[in-house]
C-alpha cells in the first residue's frame, strides 16, 4: 500500500434538479389528496360509514361519518405529499409515501361506504383468497427470474395446473391426486420453457407467449371434447378441505382469515418465507443469484449454470402448478375454458411490482387481491365507480413501477439472457 497522500476528492455539488424524485412523488400525492378531499369529500354522503367485524351491519364496528372521513383522510394525504415536497429526510420518504397511499384509499372507502357497511373479515380473507394464485405465480416467477430465465408462461402453467387438477382429481376422486397432477401440469410447461430457452436459446418472452397459447389451445380443446360432454365423469373435482385450528381461529380478524382456511393459503405463505430464506441464506440461493446476475462469473468458479437454471425453472413450474390448482380445487369446482383469465399476467405484474423478491411479490399480490375484492364489493353495493377501474389497478401499478416512480426497479442483470459458453 502506498503511503503517499492521495488526493481526497469530495464530490463537487452539482445543482440538483429541483424536481427530483421525492418532489415529484410529493406533488403527485398532493394532487391525489386534493382529489380525495374535494371530489370524494363533496360526493360522499354525510352518513355513517361502518367497517364491521362481523358479516352483517350489526355487531362491533369502526364507524366514521363518511363525508368527514373522506375529507379528513384526503387532508392527511395532502399533508404527506406536502412533507415530501418540503424535502424531509430520505428515510421518511417510503413511510410518507405509504401513508399517503393508504389514506387516499381510506378516503375513497369513506366515500363509498358512507351510509353502508364494509365487513372487514370478509374483505381481508377475500383479498387473501384472490391474491393466492398471484402469490404462487409471482413466486414461480421469482424462482425462474432470479436465476436468469424470464417466465412469461405463468398463465400457461396456471391453466395446465388447473386443468390437470380438475381432470385427475375427478377421475381419481381424490383432491390430493388432483393437487399432484396440477404440479405435473405446471412442470410440463416449465420443462418446455426451460428446454427451449436454455437449450435452444429461443427468445424467452416469445417462448413464454407461445407456451401460453399452447396451454390455452390444449386445455380448451380437451375441455370441449372431453369435459363438456360428460362433466360428471371428467370435470367435477373435489374441493380442497378447509381446516380450522382450534384456539388460533378465535383471534379477531386474523383468526378466521389465517387459521380457518384451506391448505393452499398456508403453502403459499410458507413458500414466501422458504424462498426468501433460501435465496438469502443457502448455497442454492447464493448460486441462483450469481447465475442470474453474472453467469460467466458463476461458470468460472465451477457452477453449472444451465443445470441450475433448469432446476429453478422446474421448481417454478411446481409452484405455478399449485397456483393453478387454486382455480379448480379452491375457487370453483370445475374447469372452464381460459378460466385463469389473465391471472398469470397479473402475477407477473406482482413479480415486477414486488421487485423480484418473495416478500415484495407477497405485498404486491395482496394489494392486487385487495383491488379485485374492492371491485367486487363496489359492484355489489351499486357504486357509481365502474369496477373496471379497480380491475385496471394491477396493470396501472405495474406501469408506474416499471417507470421507476416507486424506487428503482432492477431486474437481475442476466434476466432473459441465455448463457452461451464463449
Amino acid at each position, binding site marked *: 500500500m*502506498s503511503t503517499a497522500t492521495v488526493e481526497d*476528492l469530495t464530490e*463537487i455539488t452539482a445543482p440538483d434538479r429541483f424536481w427530483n424524485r421525492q418532489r415529484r412523488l410529493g406533488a403527485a400525492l398532493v394532487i391525489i389528496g386534493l382529489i380525495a378531499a374535494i371530489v370524494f369529500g363533496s360526493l360522499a354522503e354525510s352518513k355513517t360509514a361502518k367497517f364491521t367485524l362481523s358479516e352483517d351491519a350489526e355487531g362491533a364496528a369502526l364507524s366514521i361519518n363518511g363525508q368527514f372521513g373522506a375529507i379528513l383522510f384526503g387532508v392527511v394525504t395532502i399533508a404527506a405529499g406536502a412533507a415530501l415536497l418540503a424535502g424531509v429526510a430520505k428515510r421518511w420518504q417510503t413511510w410518507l409515501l405509504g401513508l399517503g397511499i393508504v389514506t387516499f384509499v381510506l378516503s375513497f372507502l369513506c366515500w363509498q361506504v358512507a351510509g353502508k357497511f364494509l365487513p372487514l373479515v370478509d374483505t381481508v380473507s377475500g383479498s387473501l383468497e384472490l391474491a393466492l394464485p398471484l402469490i404462487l405465480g409471482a413466486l414461480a416467477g421469482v424462482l425462474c427470474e432470479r436465476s436468469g430465465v424470464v417466465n412469461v408462461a405463468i398463465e400457461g402453467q396456471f391453466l395446465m395446473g388447473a386443468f390437470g387438477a380438475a381432470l385427475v382429481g375427478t377421475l381419481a376422486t381424490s383432491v390430493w391426486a388432483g393437487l399432484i397432477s396440477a404440479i405435473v401440469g405446471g412442470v410440463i410447461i416449465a420443462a418446455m420453457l426451460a428446454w427451449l430457452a436454455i437449450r435452444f436459446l429461443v427468445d424467452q418472452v416469445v417462448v413464454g407467449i407461445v407456451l401460453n397459447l399452447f396451454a390455452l389451445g390444449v386445455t380448451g380443446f380437451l375441455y370441449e371434447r372431453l369435459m363438456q360432454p360428460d362433466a360428471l365423469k371428467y370435470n367435477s373435482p373435489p374441493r380442497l378441505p378447509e381446516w380450522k385450528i382450534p384456539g388460533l381461529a378465535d383471534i379477531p380478524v386474523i383468526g378466521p382469515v389465517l387459521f380457518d382456511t384451506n391448505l393452499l393459503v398456508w403453502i403459499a405463505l410458507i413458500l414466501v418465507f422458504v424462498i426468501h430464506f433460501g435465496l438469502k441464506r443457502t448455497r442454492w440461493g447464493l448460486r441462483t443469484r*450469481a447465475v442470474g446476475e*453474472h453467469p460467466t462469473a458463476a461458470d468460472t468458479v465451477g457452477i453449472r449454470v444451465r443445470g441450475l437454471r433448469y432446476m429453478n425453472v422446474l421448481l417454478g413450474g411446481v409452484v405455478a402448478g399449485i397456483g393453478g390448482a387454486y382455480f379448480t380445487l379452491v375457487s370453483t369446482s370445475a374447469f372452464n375454458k381460459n378460466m385463469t383469465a389473465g391471472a398469470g399476467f397479473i402475477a407477473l405484474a406482482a413479480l415486477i411490482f414486488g421487485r423480484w423478491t418473495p416478500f415484495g411479490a407477497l405485498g404486491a399480490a395482496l394489494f392486487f387481491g385487495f383491488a379485485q375484492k374492492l371491485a367486487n364489493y363496489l359492484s355489489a353495493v351499486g357504486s357509481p365507480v365502474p369496477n373496471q377501474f379497480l380491475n385496471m389497478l394491477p396493470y396501472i401499478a405495474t406501469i408506474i413501477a416499471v417507470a421507476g416512480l416507486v424506487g428503482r426497479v432492477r431486474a437481475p442483470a442476466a434476466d432473459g439472457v441465455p448463457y452461451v459458453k*464463449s
Partner: protein
Amino acid sequence: MRGITKRFGDLVANDHIDITVEPGEVHALLGENGAGKSTLMNQLYGLLQPDEGEILVDGEKKVFRSPRDAIAAGIGMVHQHFMLVPVFTVAENIALGAEEVRGGPLGFLDRRRNRKDVLETSQRYGLPVDPDALVENLPVGAQQRVEIVKALTRDVDLLILDEPTAVLTPQETDELLAVMRSLAETGKSIVFITHKLREVKAIADRITVIRRGRTVGTATPDTSEDELAALMVGRDVSLEVAKEPAQPQGEVLEVAGLIVDDDRGVRAVDGVDLTVRAGEVLGIAGVQGNGQTELVEAIMGLRPARSGTIQLEGESLIGKSTKQVLRSGVGYVPEDRSLDGVVKDFSVAENLVLDMYDRPPYGSAFKLNPKAIAVNAAERVEQFDIRVSSPQSAVGNLSGGNQQKVVVAREMSRPLRLFIAAQPTRGVDVGSIEFIHKQIIHERDNGTAVLVVSSELDEVVGLADRIAVMYRGRVLAIVSPDTPREEIGLLMAGITGTNDEEDGQ
C-alpha cells in the same frame, strides 16, 4: 501443455503450442492483442476445449471439460474482465462455488466461516480486502485483489493472471508485481499474460512469446526490450512517434466546469476545465474508468451534461445532437470500434460515408449516389492504406487495424476544426498503430485541434503536446509530455505530492 491447437472457423487461434510451467516460477506469456494468449489459457482453465493436443498436470494427462475440473486440479485464473458479481459482497463472491455450509443437504451458508476464510487468506498473502464491502463499490485495484484472494482460497498451485495490469495505475501495478513475487516464493506457479514489456522484464523468470497463435520463442528476462518487441510483432518497430513541435494557435474547444453522470447516475465527470488549441494535441491520460469516456461522450452530445459549458470556437455544443456536433466540424473516433465505430455488416464503402450519406455528393434526403460513394471509397482506401480485397466487402471481415483505419478515414474526410480520438489504437496491430499516429499528427499540423484519450500512457506521451491527467472525474494536472513517467503515474493514482498542478497552462 503439448501441441495445443484451437480453431474458430477458419481462424487458427492456437497452432500447436507447447508450454511448460515449473513450480514456483513466474512465466510470462507475451504477445500482442489477439495473438492467442487468452485463448490458450482459457483452454487450460477448462473454459474452452482444445481441438488437438493435451494438457498434463504433474506429468498426468488431464481433460478439463469445465473450470470445475481445472479448479480440482489446482489451477486458478484471474480473468481480464473480472468475474465478480457486482451486487454481492466480497465474502459472497469469494465463497461462491466453494461455500462453507451447515445443515447437510439443505446447505445453509456459514457466513462466519466464509468470512474467516477470506480474512485468513488475505492476511496470509498480504492482500487487504474488506469481506463485507459490496464489489460494485470497490475500485478496480481492490476488485483485482478480491479476484486473487478468490483463486487463492481454492488452494491453487498454478495461478493464471490474464492482463492483470491493464486497469491498474503504475503504482498498483508495482504492488501487484510484489504480490506475484511473494506468491512465487511460497511455491505457487504463475502464468502472467501481458503485452507490456516493462512488466515482463520486472517479474518473469521465463518468457514465452506468442505471435499469431504460434510460439515464436522463449526468452529470459535479461533479453532487451527491443528484442522482445521484435519477437512479439515480427519486425523492428519504432515506439516513438516522429513529430515536429506543435505550433498552437487560438482556442478551439473550451470545456468549463463540466459535470456529467454515468449510466447509473453516479458522478463520472466532476468539474472538468479543458482547452484544446488549434494545431496541438491534448492527450488525456488516466486509468480507464476515471471519467474519460463520459467526458468525450458529453462533448459529442451522446450524454447529457449536468452542468458546465462546452464551446467550439465560442459556440456552445450543449444540447446539440450528435449529428449537429459532427456537422459543425468535429471528427470522432469512438472508444469501442465494433460497437460504435463501424456497422460490421455494411461494406467498407458504406461505412466510409456513414456520416455523410444524406449530403451531396453521396446522396440526398431520398436516395444514395452509389457512384460517388464508390469513388470516395477507392480514394480513401488508397489514401489510408486500408488493406481490403474490394471496397464492397463487409467491414466485419477486416482486421482490427484496418477497421480502425476505416473509422479514421471517415472522420478525417470532412473539414475538421476538432478531432477527438478515444483509444485510437486499441486492439490494433503495430503497423496500423504507426500509421494512425502519423495521420493524427498530420491532422494536427493542418491546424486542427486534437483531443486524444488513451489508457496507454505510452501512446499519450508519444502523441500529446500537453497531457491532462484525469482521476475520479477531475483533471488533476496538465503537464508536458517531458514530465517523468513516474510523476504522471502518481497523478494517475490521484497522488499530487508537488504543487505543479498549474504547470503547462
